[in-house]
């Protein structure tokens, strides 16, 4: 298994946000996690990406135990993520925002920076090339030298994608990538997610837009009150009684 999660649990005091979830991701596929508000989806992401430490359970990435590793170490292993709210540096340009994404693959230190050593020059160049590469990929070349404060919401989402891609990831977690943008833009971002998968990057996303998820994802997991209630292909999920109940509430026969 590429990424394997075993009996993952997170408690916040008396609240169990994620309860004994078993989950696995196959390489190269688009995976989705859905569930009603407060189902523990973001917490689940935070546990895998190292933002939170699990109470119990295990996470393995390519056979290596990564449970409880700090987020920056997990990123170095090739797991990248975006956040629900895009926090970009508004006063800097799109390009300047994205350049730092490659930082984790570089070793430039204070000495290199002050004396402009060959390493500084090489890595500075590499970071810029990487930034251009991901801006090209995400279709942001036109706004590369615009200040982030002046670009559209959809372009900001793309910039966040670009930033995640600049870390050279194998696996990308997208936390509600299309929240707050219109249907047309949602389609464009869906296409970008497909492009990412075609490029060989494994994708896992949280989304509320069902139509989009059903078209995009090959495998869907449904969380409700921190527990996994279903997992399978879009068809399986659409016909699953428990899922319908979780979303619509009340009795299934209704």
């Amino acid at each position, binding site marked *: 298994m590429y990424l394997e999660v075993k009996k993952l649990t997170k408690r916040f005091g008396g609240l169990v946000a994620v309860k004994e979830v078993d989950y696995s991701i196959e390489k190269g596929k688009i995976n989705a996690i859905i569930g009603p508000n407060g189902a523990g989806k973001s917490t689940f992401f935070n546990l895998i990406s190292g*933002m939170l430490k699990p109470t119990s359970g295990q996470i393995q990435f390519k056979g290596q135990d990564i449970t409880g590793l700090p987020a*920056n170490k997990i990123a170095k292993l090739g797991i990248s993520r975006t956040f629900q709210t895009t926090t970009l540096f508004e*006063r800097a340009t799109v390009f300047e925002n994205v*350049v730092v994404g490659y930082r984790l693959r570089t070793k430039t230190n204070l000495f290199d920076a002050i004396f402009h050593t060959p390493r500084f020059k090489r890595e*500075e160049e590499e970071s810029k090339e990487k930034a251009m590469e991901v801006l090209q990929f995400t279709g942001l070349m036109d706004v590369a030298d615009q200040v982030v404060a002046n670009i559209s919401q959809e372009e900001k989402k793309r910039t966040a994608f670009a*930033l995640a891609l600049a870390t050279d990831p194998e696996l990308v977690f997208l936390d509600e990538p299309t929240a707050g943008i219109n249907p047309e833009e949602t389609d464009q971002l869906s296409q970008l997610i497909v492009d990412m998968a075609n490029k060989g990057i494994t994708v896992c996303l949280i989304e509320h837009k069902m139509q989009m998820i059903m078209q995009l994802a090959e495998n869907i997991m449904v969380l409700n009150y921190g527990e996994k209630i279903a997992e399978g292909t879009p068809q399986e999920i659409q016909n699953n009684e428990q899922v319908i109940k979780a979303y619509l509430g009340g009795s299934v026969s209704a």
Partner: protein
Amino acid sequence: MIFSNKRIIIPLLIVVALLFPFIVPNQYYIYIMTLSFIWIIAVYGLNIVAGYTGYLSLAHAGFFAIGAYSMGILTTKVEMGFWLAFILSPIITMIIGLFIGLFALRTKEHFFAIYTLCVGYIIYLVIDKWESLTGGVRGLIGIPPLPNIGPIELSDPIYRYYFVLLILLLSIFVIYRIINSLVGRTFTAIRNSENLALALGISTTVNKLLAFVLSTFFAGLAGVLYAVFIRFLGPEISSTIIMFDLLTFLIVGGIGTFAGPVVGTLLIVWVSQSLQFLEEYRMLVFGPILTLMIIFSPYGIVGLFKNISAKRKVKKVKVPIETEKGA
């Protein structure tokens, strides 16, 4: 366009700074200018941690004082050679900064500001009460002046002015290179969002400490220059009054902007010179200006200009796109 502007403005400013003693051959003005340069170095230090990394350190006057007192104590009490003490003092400041940073950086935002405010006050108390070492309220006197380097008589105010200017330009150069490198971008990424920085594989702990220690180095360096320039040290140089002076310089100039420390410091120092006649009532002028600044231009005067040029840039770029959509 901005680049070509920089290419002209920076050499121009350096030339003006070099010619200043000839343009204004007034001892007192040269003295004020030299002192301003020293403050600018300290403000640059503060800008690294508060401006670029987003951690508002209020212990900065304390580190300034540590640098100054290290120089004072090493030269008067330890009787160390001048230049050795000159190099050691900022390093001592940095080492103390490292230890304080290890604890202070466990806190964030307001808590960090309050914590460092307390640290600054503790530094003040230590200097004030540890009489055997610091001379307490009586102060530390007899700090040697800058010794002559060969034929260059640094005891001369004009040469001293050039010496301080040289250190200032070097500091600005070094900080410029740091900020415009992956190291500097890492600091900005932390200010922007620590969680995002972590997700990008950046060790926030290490980088915050680096920024903090760097900032104490420049505070210490400014302190050393102050010690050999004024040649008398009292505990009040570590007081919150100095701290808030530094912060005012930074905020008015533009926190987190590169030119901010120069603009803010020079402007306020010269404006307050011309408002001397108002004595303490000067604050009646500065208070409202500072408040208005924070409300209407949180990134100071430099930020204001940057905004204007950014808006111009948008107008130029956006027009063709809009017509395209319309068609």
